[in-house]
């Protein structure tokens, strides 16, 4: 539900809560001031380890669904520094995203939930989030890929990755077992499998696009397989051209696969499509592994495989694996506590606590306890560690404004694939305008 419908009331609740806190702060200004002064004695600056900070720490969170919300609470409960009072301000997921600029500019929270990659870099370049390179110096167990995804244009780190999930082709083990399907490793095998499914009366690919973001995953996958990771990153960064033959080739391939997909995707939610897979009407579904959250039954029955190779020169090493994590605002009220919390969030201790409540994602720290992972988490983790390139998903890899234009174009394309050339020319025109505005800002 929270994925589909914004809840206007949540923002009001947030504002109300914030003003209560602010009002409280005004009354208790002396007390707060006192603690800051006290902290100046030794713990005001980040010492590189957890324990010396004190005072109140505000965390802004978009974890409005029950499992992630409980997960963050568990992380906070596991925070070893008892001198810090942690307040979590949770907002509805969509509302948080739409208001992130307001939240950042208010600088009321010290630590904020956010995403790695382009969207982290953008806020860092705007000076809205704080440099936490000193936290990174003390972080262990996070690989270079995670560090790169946390680094902004100035070479410093502004983000702590806590968890991620992967995009892959999901299916029902029950259906596949009954029909004897096996995981394909090349595009020819994939098409052969799709034809087999058609003759069995099963729609090969479930397909949904309510909200105009789910099929961005299909574009990402095809572009990564046909043109490779570097081309994809360039294209998302506004450098490649959308009228390029290589982009056109992605749409030609996509068009040839469309007959294997469910019709009417633009009017279907991903939950409805996942249900079709769960109930055996559709054979496969390219979606994030969060597809398992559609129902407990599906979580138990679901399995997935990496999008197979389309071009042996490119391989099948790159994939979308969006990373979630936390940032510190540029002017935190309690910097020492914020940095200690961020350091804590990078540790296996915190990540194990999180995953105990929300097993739909995978921990970023290599020291996290993988023995409690379910099969899906194990597979996700293996997939990501074997990856030759990790992209964050289209709407996290490029300017959000442009991601919206792409979303519109893809939605139009699947309805009218014949008009693709005009659409791509139009999209290229928009890209030029949007990136020019963006780079001037």
């Amino acid at each position, binding site marked *: 539900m929270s994925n589909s419908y914004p809840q206007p009331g949540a923002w009001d609740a947030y504002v109300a809560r914030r003003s209560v806190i602010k009002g409280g702060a005004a009354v208790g200004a002396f007390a707060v001031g006192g603690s800051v002064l006290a902290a100046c004695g030794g713990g005001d600056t980040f010492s590189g380890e957890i324990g010396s900070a004190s005072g109140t720490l505000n965390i802004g969170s978009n974890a409005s669904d029950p499992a992630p919300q409980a997960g963050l609470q568990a992380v906070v409960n596991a925070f070893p520094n008892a001198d810090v009072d942690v307040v979590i301000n949770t907002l509805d997921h969509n509302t948080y*995203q739409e208001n992130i600029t307001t939240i950042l500019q208010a600088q009321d929270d010290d630590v904020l939930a956010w995403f790695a990659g382009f969207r982290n870099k953008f806020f860092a370049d*705007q000076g809205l989030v704080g440099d936490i390179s000193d936290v990174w110096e003390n972080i262990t167990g996070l690989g270079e890929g995670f560090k790169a995804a946390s680094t902004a244009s100035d070479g410093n780190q502004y983000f702590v990755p806590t968890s991620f999930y992967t995009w892959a082709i999901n299916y029902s083990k029950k259906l596949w077992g009954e029909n004897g399907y096996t995981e394909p490793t090349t595009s020819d095998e994939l098409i052969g499998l799709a034809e087999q499914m058609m003759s069995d009366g099963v729609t090969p690919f479930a397909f949904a696009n309510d909200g105009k973001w789910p099929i961005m995953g299909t574009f990402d996958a095809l572009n990564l397989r046909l043109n490779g990771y570097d081309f994809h990153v360039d294209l998302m960064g506004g450098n490649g051209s959308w009228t390029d033959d290589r982009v056109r080739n992605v749409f030609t391939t996509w068009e040839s696969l469309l007959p294997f997909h469910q*019709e009417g995707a633009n009017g279907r939610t991903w939950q409805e499509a996942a249900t079709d897979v769960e109930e055996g009407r559709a054979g496969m579904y390219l979606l994030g592994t969060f597809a398992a959250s559609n129902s407990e039954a599906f979580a138990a029955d679901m399995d997935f495989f990496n999008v197979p190779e389309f071009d042996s020169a490119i391989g099948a090493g790159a994939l979308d694996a969006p990373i979630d994590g936390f940032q510190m605002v540029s002017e935190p009220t309690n910097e020492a506590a914020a940095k200690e919390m961020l350091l804590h969030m990078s540790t296996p201790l915190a990540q194990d606590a999180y995953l105990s409540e929300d097993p739909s994602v995978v921990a970023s720290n290599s020291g996290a306890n993988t023995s409690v992972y379910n099969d899906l988490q194990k597979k996700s983790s293996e997939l990501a560690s074997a990856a030759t390139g990790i992209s964050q998903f289209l709407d996290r890899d490029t300017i959000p404004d442009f991601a919206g234009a792409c979303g519109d174009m893809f939605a139009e394309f699947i*309805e009218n694939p014949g008009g693709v050339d005009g659409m791509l020319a139009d999209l290229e025109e928009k890209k030029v*305008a949007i990136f020019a505005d963006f780079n001037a800002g």
Partner: protein
Amino acid sequence: MTSLQHPSDAASSSDATVSEADPSSPRKGRRRYSLLTGNDRRVLQAMVGVPTFLHVSLIWVPAICTFLLSFTNWNGFRFDNMEFVGLRNYKQLFTVFEKDLYEALLNNAWVLIFLFVIATPLGILVAYILDKNLRGTAVYQSVFYFPVVLSLAVVGFIWKSVIYSPRQGVLNVLLNRTEEGNQISWLGDSDQVITLVSDYGLSKNFLAIIAPMIWRHVGYIMVLYLAGLKAVDPSLREAAAIDGSNEWQSFKNVVFPSLKPVNIVILVITVIEALRVFDIIDVLNNPIGTDVLSILVTESILGESSNVGRGSAYGVMLLMLCFGFVVWYLRSTFREDDA
């Protein structure tokens, strides 16, 4: 206001007595005789001043800011990021983003037409029938008004998941179109029902989104009109009946003209609802082909790395449309007042 300048006006005579009875009246000497005490004046100043202040600060200041921002390129972050670009945003609206803009303008026009031709007359009809004191009127009134009261999250759920869902939606179940390949994609099919010029027309899914708008608008108009109908002098209808007019004639020639003030309110509400329509499209997740101006404004401005300049330019287009209507409306209202 006019009564204040006319001491003979009956309405202000009580003020005059208060003024004379008040020994501390500050108006003496060279000042012109006034009927207002200092207190009256302060109250008046507050009564006029506070709404004026609110109006100017909440409506005109933002409107003028929007207008000014539409000439800039700004991502909404720091003021020193703002760059003056002249008319470039407007030029881009008509050259780069023209498909979005024309689609939105056309969709706003469709909403206006459908509300005006279907929803508003239907609301009036329902009100007229319910005014007949049928048994259970209160129940019917509640039923028709219900859509207006429902929270938008619920409205979104009703229409997206209960009515239009391709597999388990009421419509497809009733039409027996729930099978794979046979489903009707109510919200996803942007093929055109009516084509005006090449790519522009009325798309099927926008028509499907207009349905809940009508559903809500009927209840809204019904309540307004019902209140008006209660105020119609029953003797007028009796007289019409005695003169031998039938139901339609007495509505057309007697009731409808006597409700002129209500009719104007309804006209204004219908036009404004059509221009500012946003919420229902948004809760149905704005599928392809269903942009309207307010959606383009919010899409450009809300969220990260927003394009305030372009969003404001869309906003100014919307403002101009509203403005044209408001000017027309005020002119016709004042002309009648003068007559």
